Protein backbone atom coordinates (compact mmCIF):
# COMPACT_ATOMS: atom_id res chain seq x y z
CA UNK A 1 0.00 0.00 0.00
CA UNK A 2 2.72 2.45 1.01
CA UNK A 3 4.66 1.33 -2.02
CA UNK A 4 1.70 2.00 -4.22
CA UNK A 5 1.25 5.44 -2.77
CA UNK A 6 4.88 6.30 -3.25
CA UNK A 7 4.64 5.08 -6.82
CA UNK A 8 1.51 7.17 -7.30
CA UNK A 9 3.28 10.29 -6.02
CA UNK A 10 6.27 9.62 -8.28
CA UNK A 11 3.96 9.22 -11.24
CA UNK A 12 2.53 12.63 -10.50
CA UNK A 13 5.94 14.32 -10.56
CA UNK A 14 6.06 14.97 -14.32
CA UNK A 15 2.55 16.40 -14.10
CA UNK A 16 3.43 18.74 -11.22
CA UNK A 17 6.61 19.70 -13.05
CA UNK A 18 4.72 20.46 -16.25
CA UNK A 19 2.11 22.44 -14.35
CA UNK A 20 4.82 24.51 -12.66
CA UNK A 21 6.68 25.19 -15.90
CA UNK A 22 3.51 26.33 -17.64
CA UNK A 23 1.86 28.30 -14.90
CA UNK A 24 4.78 29.72 -12.92
CA UNK A 25 5.90 32.29 -15.54
CA UNK A 26 2.36 33.68 -15.46
CA UNK A 27 2.38 33.89 -11.65
CA UNK A 28 5.76 35.56 -11.92
CA UNK A 29 4.34 38.12 -14.34
CA UNK A 30 1.28 38.95 -12.22
CA UNK A 31 3.03 39.06 -8.83
CA UNK A 32 6.01 41.07 -10.05
CA UNK A 33 3.75 43.54 -11.83
CA UNK A 34 2.91 44.73 -8.31
CA UNK A 35 6.50 45.05 -7.05
CA UNK A 36 9.13 47.73 -7.52
CA UNK A 37 11.81 47.22 -10.15
CA UNK A 38 14.47 47.19 -7.45
CA UNK A 39 12.72 44.35 -5.64
CA UNK A 40 12.31 42.33 -8.85
CA UNK A 41 15.98 42.71 -9.71
CA UNK A 42 17.15 41.79 -6.22
CA UNK A 43 14.91 38.73 -6.03
CA UNK A 44 12.90 37.79 -9.15
CA UNK A 45 11.25 34.88 -7.35
CA UNK A 46 9.80 37.07 -4.60
CA UNK A 47 6.05 37.39 -4.30
CA UNK A 48 5.27 40.54 -2.33
CA UNK A 49 6.44 44.10 -2.20
CA UNK A 50 7.63 45.40 1.15
CA UNK A 51 5.79 48.68 0.52
CA UNK A 52 2.46 47.09 -0.46
CA UNK A 53 1.18 46.33 -3.98
CA UNK A 54 2.57 48.84 -6.47
CA UNK A 55 -0.61 49.76 -8.34
CA UNK A 56 1.28 52.73 -9.69
CA UNK A 57 2.94 50.31 -12.16
CA UNK A 58 -0.46 49.82 -13.80
CA UNK A 59 -1.25 53.51 -13.76
CA UNK A 60 2.07 54.28 -15.41
CA UNK A 61 1.68 51.51 -18.01
CA UNK A 62 -1.82 52.71 -18.88
CA UNK A 63 -1.19 56.42 -19.08
CA UNK A 64 2.47 57.17 -19.73
CA UNK A 65 3.21 53.85 -21.43
CA UNK A 66 0.14 54.46 -23.65
CA UNK A 67 -1.29 50.99 -23.06
CA UNK A 68 -4.70 52.71 -22.92
CA UNK A 69 -4.25 53.89 -26.55
CA UNK A 70 -2.99 50.51 -27.80
CA UNK A 71 -5.75 48.74 -25.90
CA UNK A 72 -8.46 50.87 -27.51
CA UNK A 73 -6.91 50.27 -30.96
CA UNK A 74 -6.74 46.52 -30.40
CA UNK A 75 -10.33 46.43 -29.16
CA UNK A 76 -11.57 48.37 -32.20
CA UNK A 77 -9.60 46.31 -34.73
CA UNK A 78 -10.47 42.99 -33.09
CA UNK A 79 -14.20 43.64 -32.76
CA UNK A 80 -14.51 45.06 -36.28
CA UNK A 81 -12.63 42.11 -37.81
CA UNK A 82 -14.76 39.71 -35.83
CA UNK A 83 -18.10 41.20 -36.86
CA UNK A 84 -17.15 41.49 -40.54
CA UNK A 85 -15.62 38.00 -40.67
CA UNK A 86 -18.69 36.44 -39.05
CA UNK A 87 -21.06 38.20 -41.45
CA UNK A 88 -19.08 37.26 -44.57
CA UNK A 89 -18.38 33.63 -43.67
CA UNK A 90 -21.86 32.91 -42.30
CA UNK A 91 -23.53 34.04 -45.52
CA UNK A 92 -21.07 32.12 -47.70
CA UNK A 93 -21.08 28.94 -45.65
CA UNK A 94 -24.87 28.93 -45.38
CA UNK A 95 -25.24 29.33 -49.12
CA UNK A 96 -22.73 26.53 -49.79
CA UNK A 97 -24.24 24.15 -47.26
CA UNK A 98 -27.94 24.86 -47.73
CA UNK A 99 -28.71 26.14 -51.21
CA UNK A 100 -25.81 24.50 -53.03
CA UNK A 101 -25.93 26.65 -56.17
CA UNK A 102 -24.19 25.29 -59.32
CA UNK A 103 -20.43 25.41 -58.77
CA UNK A 104 -20.73 25.17 -54.99
CA UNK A 105 -18.31 22.27 -54.65
CA UNK A 106 -15.62 24.04 -56.71
CA UNK A 107 -16.02 27.13 -54.56
CA UNK A 108 -15.84 25.09 -51.36
CA UNK A 109 -12.60 23.46 -52.51
CA UNK A 110 -11.33 26.95 -53.34
CA UNK A 111 -11.99 28.14 -49.79
CA UNK A 112 -10.42 24.99 -48.36
CA UNK A 113 -7.33 25.47 -50.52
CA UNK A 114 -6.67 28.80 -48.77
CA UNK A 115 -5.65 26.75 -45.72
CA UNK A 116 -2.71 25.39 -47.72
CA UNK A 117 -1.49 28.74 -48.95
CA UNK A 118 0.95 30.23 -46.51
CA UNK A 119 1.58 33.91 -45.88
CA UNK A 120 4.93 33.75 -47.69
CA UNK A 121 3.08 33.50 -51.00
CA UNK A 122 0.57 36.27 -50.40
CA UNK A 123 1.93 38.83 -47.94
CA UNK A 124 3.89 41.05 -50.30
CA UNK A 125 1.25 41.36 -53.06
CA UNK A 126 -1.43 42.07 -50.41
CA UNK A 127 0.84 44.63 -48.76
CA UNK A 128 1.39 46.37 -52.10
CA UNK A 129 -2.32 46.18 -52.91
CA UNK A 130 -3.13 47.91 -49.61
CA UNK A 131 -0.43 50.47 -50.40
CA UNK A 132 -1.96 51.20 -53.81
CA UNK A 133 -5.40 51.55 -52.18
CA UNK A 134 -3.82 53.97 -49.70
CA UNK A 135 -4.82 51.70 -46.82
CA UNK A 136 -1.40 51.27 -45.22
CA UNK A 137 -0.99 52.73 -41.76
CA UNK A 138 -4.75 52.63 -41.16
CA UNK A 139 -7.16 50.48 -39.18
CA UNK A 140 -9.40 49.67 -42.17
CA UNK A 141 -6.39 48.22 -44.01
CA UNK A 142 -5.41 46.08 -41.04
CA UNK A 143 -9.00 44.90 -40.52
CA UNK A 144 -9.25 43.99 -44.19
CA UNK A 145 -6.07 41.90 -43.96
CA UNK A 146 -7.42 40.07 -40.90
CA UNK A 147 -10.82 39.40 -42.48
CA UNK A 148 -9.20 38.13 -45.68
CA UNK A 149 -6.84 35.86 -43.77
CA UNK A 150 -9.51 34.16 -41.68
CA UNK A 151 -12.20 33.04 -44.11
CA UNK A 152 -10.98 29.54 -45.05
CA UNK A 153 -11.18 27.77 -41.69
CA UNK A 154 -14.38 29.58 -40.69
CA UNK A 155 -16.25 28.68 -43.89
CA UNK A 156 -15.11 25.09 -43.54
CA UNK A 157 -16.39 24.77 -39.96
CA UNK A 158 -19.71 26.55 -40.50
CA UNK A 159 -20.52 24.84 -43.80
CA UNK A 160 -20.07 21.41 -42.21
CA UNK A 161 -22.36 22.46 -39.39
CA UNK A 162 -25.01 23.75 -41.82
CA UNK A 163 -24.95 20.39 -43.64
CA UNK A 164 -26.00 18.67 -40.41
CA UNK A 165 -29.04 20.91 -39.78
CA UNK A 166 -32.43 19.12 -39.77
CA UNK A 167 -34.43 19.71 -42.96
CA UNK A 168 -37.91 19.14 -41.50
CA UNK A 169 -38.16 22.58 -39.89
CA UNK A 170 -37.27 24.35 -43.13
CA UNK A 171 -39.78 22.36 -45.12
CA UNK A 172 -42.53 23.04 -42.61
CA UNK A 173 -41.74 26.76 -42.71
CA UNK A 174 -41.64 26.76 -46.53
CA UNK A 175 -45.08 25.12 -46.68
CA UNK A 176 -46.33 27.84 -44.33
CA UNK A 177 -45.15 30.35 -46.94
CA UNK A 178 -41.88 31.58 -45.46
CA UNK A 179 -39.35 32.86 -48.03
CA UNK A 180 -35.72 31.72 -48.24
CA UNK A 181 -34.50 34.81 -46.39
CA UNK A 182 -37.00 34.25 -43.61
CA UNK A 183 -36.02 30.59 -43.18
CA UNK A 184 -32.38 31.65 -43.03
CA UNK A 185 -32.92 34.44 -40.55
CA UNK A 186 -35.55 33.00 -38.20
CA UNK A 187 -34.96 29.26 -38.30
CA UNK A 188 -31.45 28.31 -39.38
CA UNK A 189 -29.37 31.21 -38.05
CA UNK A 190 -30.35 30.59 -34.40
CA UNK A 191 -29.44 26.92 -34.90
CA UNK A 192 -25.89 27.63 -36.06
CA UNK A 193 -25.05 29.93 -33.14
CA UNK A 194 -22.88 27.27 -31.42
CA UNK A 195 -20.49 26.98 -34.36
CA UNK A 196 -20.48 30.77 -34.77
CA UNK A 197 -19.36 31.00 -31.14
CA UNK A 198 -16.46 28.66 -31.88
CA UNK A 199 -15.43 30.75 -34.89
CA UNK A 200 -15.82 34.02 -32.98
CA UNK A 201 -13.69 32.87 -30.04
CA UNK A 202 -10.95 31.45 -32.22
CA UNK A 203 -10.74 34.59 -34.34
CA UNK A 204 -10.84 36.82 -31.27
CA UNK A 205 -7.74 35.21 -29.83
CA UNK A 206 -6.03 35.14 -33.22
CA UNK A 207 -6.61 38.80 -34.06
CA UNK A 208 -5.99 40.06 -30.52
CA UNK A 209 -2.51 38.47 -30.64
CA UNK A 210 -1.65 39.19 -34.27
CA UNK A 211 1.72 40.82 -34.72
CA UNK A 212 3.10 40.51 -38.25
CA UNK A 213 0.47 42.48 -40.22
CA UNK A 214 0.42 45.19 -37.58
CA UNK A 215 4.22 45.38 -37.81
CA UNK A 216 4.35 45.82 -41.58
CA UNK A 217 1.33 48.10 -42.06
CA UNK A 218 1.14 50.37 -39.00
CA UNK A 219 3.84 52.99 -38.47
CA UNK A 220 1.89 55.68 -36.63
CA UNK A 221 2.21 55.21 -32.88
CA UNK A 222 -1.38 56.43 -32.31
CA UNK A 223 -2.70 53.57 -34.46
CA UNK A 224 -0.67 50.69 -33.03
CA UNK A 225 -2.34 47.62 -31.59
CA UNK A 226 -1.18 46.06 -28.33
CA UNK A 227 1.32 43.45 -29.58
CA UNK A 228 3.08 46.09 -31.68
CA UNK A 229 2.77 48.82 -29.07
CA UNK A 230 4.36 46.53 -26.51
CA UNK A 231 7.57 46.61 -28.52
CA UNK A 232 7.89 50.40 -28.01
CA UNK A 233 6.87 49.82 -24.51
CA UNK A 234 9.70 47.36 -24.03
CA UNK A 235 12.37 49.77 -25.24
CA UNK A 236 10.85 52.51 -23.11
CA UNK A 237 10.64 50.37 -19.96
CA UNK A 238 13.53 48.04 -20.62
CA UNK A 239 14.94 48.64 -17.18
CA UNK A 240 11.62 49.29 -15.47
CA UNK A 241 10.52 45.69 -14.93
CA UNK A 242 7.50 46.49 -12.75
CA UNK A 243 5.80 48.64 -15.40
CA UNK A 244 6.77 46.25 -18.20
CA UNK A 245 5.19 43.30 -16.40
CA UNK A 246 2.09 45.36 -15.58
CA UNK A 247 1.75 46.10 -19.32
CA UNK A 248 2.13 42.40 -20.17
CA UNK A 249 -0.49 41.46 -17.59
CA UNK A 250 -2.97 43.94 -19.10
CA UNK A 251 -2.46 42.46 -22.59
CA UNK A 252 -2.76 38.89 -21.36
CA UNK A 253 -6.02 39.28 -19.45
CA UNK A 254 -8.55 39.50 -22.33
CA UNK A 255 -7.20 36.39 -24.12
CA UNK A 256 -6.87 34.49 -20.88
CA UNK A 257 -10.38 35.34 -19.67
CA UNK A 258 -11.97 34.48 -23.02
CA UNK A 259 -10.08 31.19 -23.01
CA UNK A 260 -10.90 30.24 -19.42
CA UNK A 261 -14.61 31.01 -19.91
CA UNK A 262 -14.88 29.19 -23.22
CA UNK A 263 -12.15 26.54 -23.04
CA UNK A 264 -14.64 23.86 -24.11
CA UNK A 265 -15.27 25.68 -27.40
CA UNK A 266 -11.55 26.02 -28.05
CA UNK A 267 -10.89 22.31 -27.88
CA UNK A 268 -13.95 21.71 -30.05
CA UNK A 269 -12.96 24.22 -32.70
CA UNK A 270 -9.34 23.28 -32.79
CA UNK A 271 -9.87 19.55 -33.02
CA UNK A 272 -12.87 19.73 -35.38
CA UNK A 273 -10.67 19.70 -38.45
CA UNK A 274 -7.84 17.54 -37.26
CA UNK A 275 -9.29 14.71 -35.22
CA UNK A 276 -12.31 13.99 -37.38
CA UNK A 277 -10.53 14.59 -40.66
Amino acid at each position, binding site marked *: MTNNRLFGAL*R*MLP*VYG*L*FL*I*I*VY*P*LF*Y*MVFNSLRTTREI*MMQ*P*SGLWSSSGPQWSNYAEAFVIGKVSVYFANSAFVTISSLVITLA*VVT*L*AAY*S*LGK*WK*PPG*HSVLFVGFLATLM*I*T*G*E*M*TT*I*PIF*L*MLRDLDLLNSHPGLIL*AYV*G*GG*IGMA*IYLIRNFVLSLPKELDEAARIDGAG*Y*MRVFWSIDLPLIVPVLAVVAIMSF*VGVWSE*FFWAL*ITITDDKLKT*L*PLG*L*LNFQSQYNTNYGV*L*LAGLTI*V*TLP*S*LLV*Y*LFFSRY*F*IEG*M*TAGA*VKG
Partner: protein
Amino acid sequence: MIARKYTLAYLFLLPAVALLAAFYIYPVLTSVVRSFTDWNGFDAGFLWVGWGNYKNVFGDHHFWAATGRTLRFAFVTTIVQTILGFLLAFFIYTLVSDRWRKLMRVAVYIPVILPGAVVSLLWSNLLSPNFGLVNEVLRAIGLEAWARGWLGSTETAMNTLMIVNTWKFIGMTITFYIVAMLAIPKDLIESAKMDGAGSGTLLWHIFRPLLKGITEVNFILSLIGGLKAFDLIYMMTGGGPGDSTTVLGIMIYRRAFLSFRFGEAITMGIILFIVILTLTLISRRLIASREDEQ
Protein backbone atom coordinates in the same frame (compact mmCIF):
# COMPACT_ATOMS: atom_id res chain seq x y z
CA MET B 1 -38.38 29.81 -57.88
CA ILE B 2 -35.12 27.91 -58.33
CA ALA B 3 -33.68 30.92 -60.15
CA ARG B 4 -34.52 33.18 -57.22
CA LYS B 5 -32.96 30.75 -54.80
CA TYR B 6 -29.71 30.70 -56.78
CA THR B 7 -29.61 34.48 -57.18
CA LEU B 8 -29.81 34.75 -53.41
CA ALA B 9 -27.22 31.99 -53.03
CA TYR B 10 -24.70 33.81 -55.23
CA LEU B 11 -25.41 37.11 -53.47
CA PHE B 12 -24.61 35.43 -50.16
CA LEU B 13 -21.35 34.11 -51.61
CA LEU B 14 -20.28 37.36 -53.23
CA PRO B 15 -18.32 39.00 -50.35
CA ALA B 16 -16.44 35.81 -49.52
CA VAL B 17 -15.58 35.15 -53.17
CA ALA B 18 -14.34 38.74 -53.52
CA LEU B 19 -12.05 38.18 -50.52
CA LEU B 20 -10.90 34.85 -51.96
CA ALA B 21 -9.96 36.61 -55.18
CA ALA B 22 -8.29 39.61 -53.55
CA PHE B 23 -6.44 37.83 -50.75
CA TYR B 24 -5.52 34.48 -52.29
CA ILE B 25 -5.94 34.11 -56.05
CA TYR B 26 -4.58 37.53 -57.06
CA PRO B 27 -1.61 37.52 -54.63
CA VAL B 28 -0.53 33.97 -55.48
CA LEU B 29 -0.65 34.64 -59.23
CA THR B 30 1.16 37.96 -58.78
CA SER B 31 3.84 36.36 -56.64
CA VAL B 32 4.54 33.65 -59.17
CA VAL B 33 4.53 35.99 -62.18
CA ARG B 34 6.61 38.71 -60.48
CA SER B 35 9.25 36.21 -59.38
CA PHE B 36 10.22 35.90 -63.07
CA THR B 37 10.61 39.67 -63.54
CA ASP B 38 12.97 42.39 -62.36
CA TRP B 39 10.02 44.26 -60.79
CA ASN B 40 10.90 46.15 -57.62
CA GLY B 41 7.48 46.90 -56.16
CA PHE B 42 7.54 50.59 -57.01
CA ASP B 43 7.73 51.08 -60.79
CA ALA B 44 4.90 49.97 -63.01
CA GLY B 45 7.25 48.61 -65.68
CA PHE B 46 9.27 45.43 -65.48
CA LEU B 47 11.35 43.10 -67.64
CA TRP B 48 11.21 39.33 -67.83
CA VAL B 49 14.33 37.83 -66.31
CA GLY B 50 13.41 34.15 -66.48
CA TRP B 51 14.95 32.18 -63.63
CA GLY B 52 17.27 35.11 -62.79
CA ASN B 53 15.76 35.82 -59.37
CA TYR B 54 15.90 32.15 -58.43
CA LYS B 55 19.52 31.92 -59.55
CA ASN B 56 20.40 34.97 -57.46
CA VAL B 57 18.69 33.58 -54.38
CA PHE B 58 20.27 30.15 -54.79
CA GLY B 59 23.68 31.77 -55.29
CA ASP B 60 23.38 33.72 -52.04
CA HIS B 61 25.19 32.00 -49.17
CA HIS B 62 23.13 33.99 -46.61
CA PHE B 63 20.04 32.30 -48.02
CA TRP B 64 21.53 28.82 -47.55
CA ALA B 65 22.65 29.64 -44.01
CA ALA B 66 19.16 30.89 -43.16
CA THR B 67 17.62 27.78 -44.74
CA GLY B 68 19.86 25.57 -42.61
CA ARG B 69 18.82 27.42 -39.43
CA THR B 70 15.16 27.22 -40.41
CA LEU B 71 15.33 23.46 -40.99
CA ARG B 72 17.17 22.92 -37.73
CA PHE B 73 14.68 25.06 -35.81
CA ALA B 74 11.69 23.34 -37.41
CA PHE B 75 12.88 19.73 -37.09
CA VAL B 76 14.29 19.96 -33.57
CA THR B 77 11.20 21.70 -32.18
CA THR B 78 8.87 19.32 -34.06
CA ILE B 79 10.58 16.14 -32.90
CA VAL B 80 10.87 17.30 -29.29
CA GLN B 81 7.33 18.65 -29.24
CA THR B 82 5.81 15.49 -30.74
CA ILE B 83 7.62 12.97 -28.53
CA LEU B 84 7.42 15.01 -25.33
CA GLY B 85 3.83 15.97 -26.12
CA PHE B 86 2.88 12.32 -26.59
CA LEU B 87 4.44 11.28 -23.27
CA LEU B 88 2.95 14.20 -21.34
CA ALA B 89 -0.47 13.60 -22.87
CA PHE B 90 -0.24 9.97 -21.73
CA PHE B 91 0.65 11.11 -18.22
CA ILE B 92 -2.31 13.45 -18.12
CA TYR B 93 -4.61 10.81 -19.63
CA THR B 94 -3.65 8.25 -16.98
CA LEU B 95 -4.02 10.68 -14.05
CA VAL B 96 -6.18 9.05 -11.39
CA SER B 97 -7.42 12.36 -10.04
CA ASP B 98 -10.24 13.69 -12.19
CA ARG B 99 -9.67 17.21 -10.92
CA TRP B 100 -6.00 17.26 -11.89
CA ARG B 101 -6.76 15.83 -15.30
CA LYS B 102 -9.27 18.60 -16.03
CA LEU B 103 -6.95 21.24 -14.58
CA MET B 104 -4.01 20.07 -16.69
CA ARG B 105 -6.08 19.96 -19.86
CA VAL B 106 -7.05 23.59 -19.37
CA ALA B 107 -3.56 24.66 -18.22
CA VAL B 108 -1.50 23.18 -21.05
CA TYR B 109 -3.35 25.22 -23.65
CA ILE B 110 -2.83 28.58 -21.91
CA PRO B 111 0.58 29.34 -23.51
CA VAL B 112 -0.90 28.57 -26.93
CA ILE B 113 -3.49 31.34 -26.62
CA LEU B 114 -1.11 33.89 -25.08
CA PRO B 115 -0.14 36.63 -27.53
CA GLY B 116 3.33 35.98 -29.01
CA ALA B 117 4.35 39.47 -27.90
CA VAL B 118 3.61 38.60 -24.27
CA VAL B 119 5.48 35.30 -24.47
CA SER B 120 8.50 36.99 -26.07
CA LEU B 121 8.76 39.88 -23.65
CA LEU B 122 8.00 37.75 -20.60
CA TRP B 123 10.66 35.17 -21.49
CA SER B 124 13.19 37.86 -22.43
CA ASN B 125 12.66 39.18 -18.92
CA LEU B 126 12.91 35.73 -17.29
CA LEU B 127 16.10 35.06 -19.25
CA SER B 128 17.78 38.40 -18.67
CA PRO B 129 21.47 37.89 -17.81
CA ASN B 130 21.80 39.60 -14.44
CA PHE B 131 18.36 39.99 -12.94
CA GLY B 132 16.39 37.19 -14.60
CA LEU B 133 14.59 34.44 -12.78
CA VAL B 134 16.22 31.63 -14.78
CA ASN B 135 19.72 32.65 -13.75
CA GLU B 136 18.57 33.25 -10.18
CA VAL B 137 17.26 29.67 -10.01
CA LEU B 138 20.50 28.31 -11.50
CA ARG B 139 22.56 30.21 -8.94
CA ALA B 140 20.30 29.04 -6.12
CA ILE B 141 20.77 25.37 -6.99
CA GLY B 142 24.54 25.71 -7.30
CA LEU B 143 24.84 25.94 -11.08
CA GLU B 144 26.37 29.44 -11.16
CA ALA B 145 28.56 28.37 -14.05
CA TRP B 146 25.43 27.84 -16.19
CA ALA B 147 24.02 31.30 -15.60
CA ARG B 148 24.54 33.38 -18.73
CA GLY B 149 22.97 35.81 -21.19
CA TRP B 150 20.90 33.15 -22.89
CA LEU B 151 19.69 35.26 -25.79
CA GLY B 152 22.83 37.35 -26.17
CA SER B 153 25.29 34.63 -27.15
CA THR B 154 25.56 33.04 -30.57
CA GLU B 155 26.01 29.65 -28.90
CA THR B 156 22.81 29.60 -26.88
CA ALA B 157 20.40 32.00 -28.61
CA MET B 158 19.00 29.47 -31.09
CA ASN B 159 18.52 26.69 -28.55
CA THR B 160 16.91 29.10 -26.12
CA LEU B 161 14.44 30.22 -28.79
CA MET B 162 13.62 26.59 -29.53
CA ILE B 163 12.85 25.98 -25.86
CA VAL B 164 10.58 29.03 -25.62
CA ASN B 165 8.88 28.00 -28.86
CA THR B 166 8.24 24.54 -27.43
CA TRP B 167 6.92 26.07 -24.19
CA LYS B 168 4.39 28.06 -26.19
CA PHE B 169 3.19 25.40 -28.60
CA ILE B 170 3.48 22.00 -26.88
CA GLY B 171 0.01 22.50 -25.38
CA MET B 172 -1.47 22.13 -28.84
CA THR B 173 0.29 18.78 -29.38
CA ILE B 174 -0.76 17.55 -25.92
CA THR B 175 -4.37 18.61 -26.46
CA PHE B 176 -4.67 16.82 -29.79
CA TYR B 177 -3.19 13.66 -28.29
CA ILE B 178 -5.49 13.71 -25.25
CA VAL B 179 -8.61 14.22 -27.37
CA ALA B 180 -7.55 11.27 -29.53
CA MET B 181 -6.63 9.12 -26.52
CA LEU B 182 -10.07 9.71 -25.00
CA ALA B 183 -11.58 8.35 -28.22
CA ILE B 184 -9.81 4.98 -27.85
CA PRO B 185 -12.36 2.39 -26.60
CA LYS B 186 -11.90 1.77 -22.88
CA ASP B 187 -12.48 -2.02 -23.28
CA LEU B 188 -9.40 -2.25 -25.44
CA ILE B 189 -7.21 -0.67 -22.76
CA GLU B 190 -8.85 -2.68 -19.98
CA SER B 191 -8.35 -5.98 -21.74
CA ALA B 192 -4.72 -5.13 -22.45
CA LYS B 193 -4.24 -4.38 -18.76
CA MET B 194 -5.92 -7.71 -17.88
CA ASP B 195 -3.37 -9.42 -20.07
CA GLY B 196 -0.71 -7.81 -17.92
CA ALA B 197 0.35 -4.90 -20.12
CA GLY B 198 2.23 -2.21 -18.18
CA SER B 199 2.38 1.48 -19.01
CA GLY B 200 5.29 0.98 -21.39
CA THR B 201 3.58 -1.80 -23.34
CA LEU B 202 0.34 0.15 -23.41
CA LEU B 203 2.14 3.21 -24.71
CA TRP B 204 4.15 1.43 -27.38
CA HIS B 205 1.81 -1.31 -28.58
CA ILE B 206 -1.65 0.23 -28.13
CA PHE B 207 -1.45 4.01 -28.05
CA ARG B 208 1.38 4.61 -30.52
CA PRO B 209 -0.12 2.62 -33.42
CA LEU B 210 -3.68 3.77 -32.72
CA LEU B 211 -2.61 7.41 -32.64
CA LYS B 212 -0.64 7.36 -35.92
CA GLY B 213 -3.17 9.65 -37.55
CA ILE B 214 -2.94 12.27 -34.84
CA THR B 215 0.85 11.96 -34.73
CA GLU B 216 0.83 12.87 -38.40
CA VAL B 217 -1.35 15.92 -37.70
CA ASN B 218 0.82 17.02 -34.76
CA PHE B 219 4.07 16.49 -36.62
CA ILE B 220 2.92 18.42 -39.67
CA LEU B 221 1.36 21.29 -37.73
CA SER B 222 4.54 21.79 -35.65
CA LEU B 223 6.73 21.45 -38.71
CA ILE B 224 4.78 24.09 -40.64
CA GLY B 225 4.80 26.34 -37.56
CA GLY B 226 8.56 25.89 -37.18
CA LEU B 227 9.31 26.59 -40.84
CA LYS B 228 7.26 29.79 -40.70
CA ALA B 229 8.58 30.92 -37.30
CA PHE B 230 8.76 34.70 -37.07
CA ASP B 231 7.06 36.46 -34.14
CA LEU B 232 9.02 35.01 -31.21
CA ILE B 233 12.35 35.25 -33.00
CA TYR B 234 11.74 38.79 -34.24
CA MET B 235 10.80 40.02 -30.79
CA MET B 236 13.36 38.08 -28.72
CA THR B 237 16.53 38.32 -30.80
CA GLY B 238 15.60 40.08 -34.04
CA GLY B 239 17.67 37.43 -35.84
CA GLY B 240 20.83 38.04 -33.85
CA PRO B 241 23.28 38.05 -32.24
CA GLY B 242 25.14 38.28 -35.54
CA ASP B 243 23.05 36.18 -37.89
CA SER B 244 22.78 33.27 -35.48
CA THR B 245 18.96 33.22 -35.35
CA THR B 246 18.18 34.66 -38.79
CA VAL B 247 15.71 32.12 -40.13
CA LEU B 248 13.98 32.46 -43.51
CA GLY B 249 10.97 34.29 -42.06
CA ILE B 250 13.24 36.99 -40.65
CA MET B 251 15.32 37.16 -43.82
CA ILE B 252 12.27 37.57 -46.06
CA TYR B 253 10.88 40.27 -43.78
CA ARG B 254 14.17 42.19 -43.90
CA ARG B 255 14.56 41.91 -47.67
CA ALA B 256 11.00 43.13 -48.26
CA PHE B 257 10.30 45.69 -45.57
CA LEU B 258 13.74 46.99 -44.60
CA SER B 259 15.68 46.75 -47.91
CA PHE B 260 12.56 47.03 -50.12
CA ARG B 261 13.86 44.28 -52.42
CA PHE B 262 10.36 42.93 -53.04
CA GLY B 263 11.23 40.78 -56.06
CA GLU B 264 13.88 38.87 -54.13
CA ALA B 265 11.62 38.55 -51.08
CA ILE B 266 8.77 37.18 -53.20
CA THR B 267 11.12 34.62 -54.76
CA MET B 268 12.30 33.48 -51.32
CA GLY B 269 8.67 33.30 -50.20
CA ILE B 270 7.83 30.99 -53.08
CA ILE B 271 10.85 28.80 -52.32
CA LEU B 272 9.83 28.60 -48.64
CA PHE B 273 6.29 27.67 -49.68
CA ILE B 274 7.62 24.87 -51.90
CA VAL B 275 9.86 23.64 -49.05
CA ILE B 276 6.89 23.59 -46.67
CA LEU B 277 4.68 21.77 -49.17
CA THR B 278 7.36 19.20 -50.02
CA LEU B 279 8.28 18.45 -46.41
CA THR B 280 4.59 18.15 -45.50
CA LEU B 281 3.99 15.64 -48.29
CA ILE B 282 7.14 13.68 -47.42
CA SER B 283 6.24 13.45 -43.72
CA ARG B 284 2.73 12.34 -44.60
CA ARG B 285 4.13 9.65 -46.84
CA LEU B 286 6.66 8.49 -44.22
CA ILE B 287 4.18 8.34 -41.36
CA ALA B 288 1.50 6.71 -43.52
CA SER B 289 3.83 4.04 -44.90
CA ARG B 290 4.96 3.08 -41.41
CA GLU B 291 1.30 2.56 -40.66
CA ASP B 292 1.06 -0.04 -43.43
CA GLU B 293 3.82 -2.07 -41.84
CA GLN B 294 1.77 -2.59 -38.68
